[in-house]
Each structure stands twice: as C-alpha cells, then as structure tokens.
C-alpha cells in the first residue's frame, strides 16, 4: 500500500472474500462533515461495493473539515469525492453516488455499451 490515510474517520470496513485473487481495492471517500450528501454517498458506496465488488476492498472516509490540509494535498474541490486509489489507474467520482450505473462506469465495473 503506497499511502495510508492518517485517520479513517467514520468507518473502516474490510470484507473478506473467498476468492484469493490478491487484488485489493482502496476507495477513499472525501466528505466535509456529516452533511446529507456525505451520508448518502457513504451509504451508496457501501451498497455498490457489497453488490458489485467480489474482491477485498477498503473504504476510507476522510473528513476534510478535520483535515483541511488534505483538500490541498489531494486536490479535492467538490465533496463528496470518491477516489479509487487502487487498482490503478486512479479513478475519481464526485457527487453523492446516487446514480449507481455511472458509479459503476466510473469504477470500471461496468463497460459502457
């Protein structure tokens, strides 16, 4: 793992999957406090991961209000922002993730047909 977030604010969830693929997803959700949008985004993300990710994954929630420096360091403007750190390439999705299909496209889990 190249970088570790300093704190995982809300919840750190690991879900083991039987398949020993060795591939681990690292998903970072940047939020600014417990706004409705950030809560919705987290719920949506959790659901999408449970439904569509078969491999091991980590969701790290970073509250920018607690760590304002990270907004600059990680080039975050809009919140909520979801960043797929791993696997590469890095993917970025903004919004409350309410459009599941677009999230899946954004995460390369669904090919656009």
């Amino acid at each position, binding site marked *: 793992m190249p970088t570790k977030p300093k704190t995982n604010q809300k919840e750190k969830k690991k879900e083991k999957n039987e398949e020993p693929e060795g591939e681990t997803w690292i998903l970072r959700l940047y939020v600014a406090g417990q706004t409705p949008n950030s809560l919705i985004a987290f719920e949506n993300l959790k659901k999408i991961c449970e439904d569509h990710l078969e491999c091991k994954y980590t969701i790290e929630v970073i509250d920018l209000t607690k760590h*304002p420096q990270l907004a600059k360091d990680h080039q975050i403007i*809009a919140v909520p922002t979801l960043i797929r750190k791993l696997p590469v390439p890095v993917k970025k999705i903004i919004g409350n993730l309410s459009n599941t299909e677009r999230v899946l496209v954004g995460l390369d889990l669904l090919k656009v047909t």
Partner: protein
Amino acid sequence: MKKNKIAVIAGTAEFEKVPSGIKGFDDITGGGLPKGRPSLVSGGPGCGKTLFAMEFIARGITDYGEPGVFVAFEEKIDDLKKNFKSMGFDLDDLVRQKKLVLDHITIDRSEFEETGEYDLEGLFIRLGGMIDEIGAKRVAIDTLEALFSGFTNEAILRSELRRLFLWLKDRGVTAVITGERGDRTITKYGLEEYVADCVITLDHRLMNQIATRRLRVVKYRGSIHGTDEYPFLISSDGISVLPITSMSLTHTASEERISTGIPRLDTMLGGKGFYRGSSILVSGQAGTGKTSIAATFIDAVCRRNEKCLFFIFEESESQLMRNMRSIGIDLEPWVKKGLLKCHAVRPTAYSLEMHLSIMLKLIGEFKPRVVAVDPISNLYPIGDDIQVRSMLMRLIDFAKSLQITGLFTNLSNDANSGTYTFEPTEMHVSSLMDAWLILKNVEGNGERNRAFSIIKARGMAHSNQLREFVLSDKGIQLLDVYKGSEGVFFGSARMAQESGEIDERLRKNEEIERKKREIESKRKLMEIEIEILKEKYAREEVDMKILIGQDISREKAEAKTTKEIATQRQIDR
C-alpha cells in the same frame, strides 16, 4: 499630496479601502479596493488579469504587510513563480516567509464522473485552510470560471459561487477574483452577478497596429471613482494605470528661473530664462536648429551641475554628440560626469505606453532636474493625436509634480511655408506647454535663413520680436532682424541692408562736412565784404567831411565878401 487630495474628495461616507499597490489604480479609485470584500477583475485573454491579481497579493505583502493567498486555476505554480520573477517578485521567498500561499487547482472533466449532488465545500476548506495557515488578509482567485469548464452541473456551481462570495465576505478578506470576458456580459458566466461591490474590466485592443491596454472601473458601490477608460502599462515592474486626464493640477509652481544657455534668449524671456518646472516646446521645420537649442539648454543645465535626462528619437547618442560639437557644444564630458543621460531609441521600437513607462521609470531612477525629448513629433507614427497628447500630458504632469523642467522639440510638417504662420498641427500640444519657441525657415534672395520667436511664455514678460537665429561654431546666436519700410530682412539681405545703411551714413556725414565748409567760406566771404564796405564807408566819410569843410569856408568867404561889398557901396539902411 495628490493622493490625499483625492482621498478627501472621495472620502465621504464610504467604507474602508485597501490600497491595491498597483500604481495609479489607487488614485482612480480613491484609495484602492473595498476592504474585506471581493472585487471582480474581468478581461479577455492576455490582458493582464493574472498580473493584476498577483500584484495585488504580492504588493499587499511587500508594501502593506498583508499576507495573501493566490489560487490559480490556470497557471501552474512553477510557471507563476517564473513569470513573476521577471517582474521582480520573488514568490519563493514570500512563501518561505509564510506570507504567501500559492495553490494550483486543476479540474479536468475527463478525470472524473459526476453522479448525483455535490457541493464545493472542498474548495472552501482548501481556501479556509490556506487563509488560516498564514493569517491572510488578501485572496486572489485566478480565474474562477475554470470551474465552469470542470463541472457540468451549472445550478450547483452557481449556488456554490454565490456562497463563495458570501463566504469570502464573511472571512473578511479582501479578494480579487478574475473572470474571462464574455461576448455581451462582463464575464463569460456572469460572475458580476455575485460581486456587488467592485467590478473592474481590463482590455487589450489594437489601434493602428499598436496595442493599448485599458482599465475601467465599471462599478464601485458606494464610492466615487474615475469612470474613464484608463490606459495601463505592463512593464518589468508590474501594472501602472495612468489617468489620461490628470486628476488634479496641484503641482506647486516655482518662482525660480533657469537660464536657457542662450544669453540673448534669456534677455528675451525677461532677462532670466524659463521657470523651473515649466514645460517648453521648441517647434520648427526640418533643419531649423531645434536639437541645437535643446543641446544648448542641456549644456547650460549641466554647467549648473544639475542632472539632465535626454530622450533622443532621431539620432544615436554619438551622432548627436558629434553634431553638437560642430556648433561648439560638447555634451560628452557631462555624460562622463554622470550629469547627462541619453536614452536614444527609435519611436517605433515599442508602443507609446511602453515609451511612457520607460521614460517615467528612467526619470524615477535618474532623478534629473531637466528632461528633454527630441523630437515628440516622431511619436506620431505610433499613436494618434489624442494618444500622443495624453502621453505627453502624463509625462509633463509627472515631471511637473517633481519640479522637473521639460523641453520638447517638435518637427513642424509645414515645410514649404515661407511665411511666418502658426502651426495648426502643434496647437493641440501647445496648450500643455508653458513656453513655446518657434523656429522658421525664411527663404529669399536665393538663400534660407532661420527666424526665431517666442510664441508664448506663461507668467513672464517676454519679447515679441522676431530674431534671426544663427548657428556657428560658437553656438547659437540670436540677432536682430532688419525691419524697415521694405519689410523684414534675414541673412545676407540683412547684412546688405546693414552695409547699405553704413554707406548711407558715411555719405550723409560727408554732406554735412561739405555744408559746414560751405558755410564757413560763406561766412568768410561775408566778413571780407563787410571789411570792404567799411573801408568804402570810411573813405566816403572823409570825402564828405572835406566837402563839408569847403562849403563852410566858402560861405564864410561869401559873407565876408558881401559885407565888404556893402561897405564898399556904403549902403545905408
């Protein structure tokens, strides 16, 4: 002095202002930007928005001790540092001193997906973090509209922008937000809707192939401000806004007089020469000796141990030096002594504004007592009448405010005119000038001579006489012209007339001598005649006396004879 005056005019019932540090801008806005509020600066590409924003931040730090945050959406930090290094701002140093935070925000739409609602709280947090980091009083965002190309949801964006402006106000920072100019609106995305207090537009347009930058304060709520378009310059030390019409005519007029270097001209100007700090126009046709007058004046200035700055638009420095040596003026020692600085450049080398900015800069650095420009007419190819006039006005105002005397030569177009007339082309510059000397070619008798006169000299008694202007290896001489029943004569005609006069005088003298001699001889003749008459008279007198004597004796004899006869005849009675 000037600043205070404006502040007094505009300082009634207003909110506080923060000096922007941009030269001239604080003058036209009566103090700068509204304190603790966001201001919008809009303009097309390459018109100096980024520079305006950065100068506001950098000068705020260096000149007013206000730390600042600069957020760049377009330029990379390294590029910014490099660009502003050439303008004399060491951004790295300011960052090290914890006075400045630079942030580059990239938004690439292709990099992310948008799903559902979001806000720009990240930007707020980012900005807030940077403001807190150094206790910033100033914030610049360049150019905020980049957000519109990054995010598709315009409704969210607009509400977030509104929130951003309110937020900036709440934070109490003085902010400059730049925006791209729109087709019909001040900014492409109508940012002006959100900024209620101060909107400035920058413009960069081409006129006669010459680029001119202009700044206008479109809106400044609750403040009196200049509403004109003000030309501004971007030079190596940043933006300087130059009011076309000077805000005030407050320079103090000096009573001191300085010699022109031409004794006869001093005499014509009430015996003492020009006022210090006045502006002098020397106009004339080609080859009438304008540069020579300028050089003579400069020579006199340096002889008094005063510094002089000479802007030459026609010749190279060494050519001018050589030419002036031919009339006995050697300016080279003054250059070596550091009293004279020549700045020779072709007028077409750069734009009018650039000329002005370089001139003002050199004046600021060299601190001369006298500035000479030879000739201003060469500026006309690069600007129209109004531009040249406004540029000169700015130059003259600047010089006057520093009590610098300005001498400007001007080539008259009217080269064929033999008669002595006013030059209409100079009329519009002349009103800027305190003194106006005019040189004319006068043709006649198969030769060309130079006539010189003073058209005006404000505030002093001056001669109204035409003089003949003669250049020799001893310098400039002003001679009386011949005025008589046959007209005005110059040159050899004057000399012929003068020698004719001498002959005439000699002839007259001889005549008088002759008449004198004549009278003398007449007198002598008369005296001789008198002598002769006297002689004649004396002789006649003697004769008469003899005759009278004879008569008496004859009578006596007669009487005696009668008696004797009577006695003889024994007459009884």
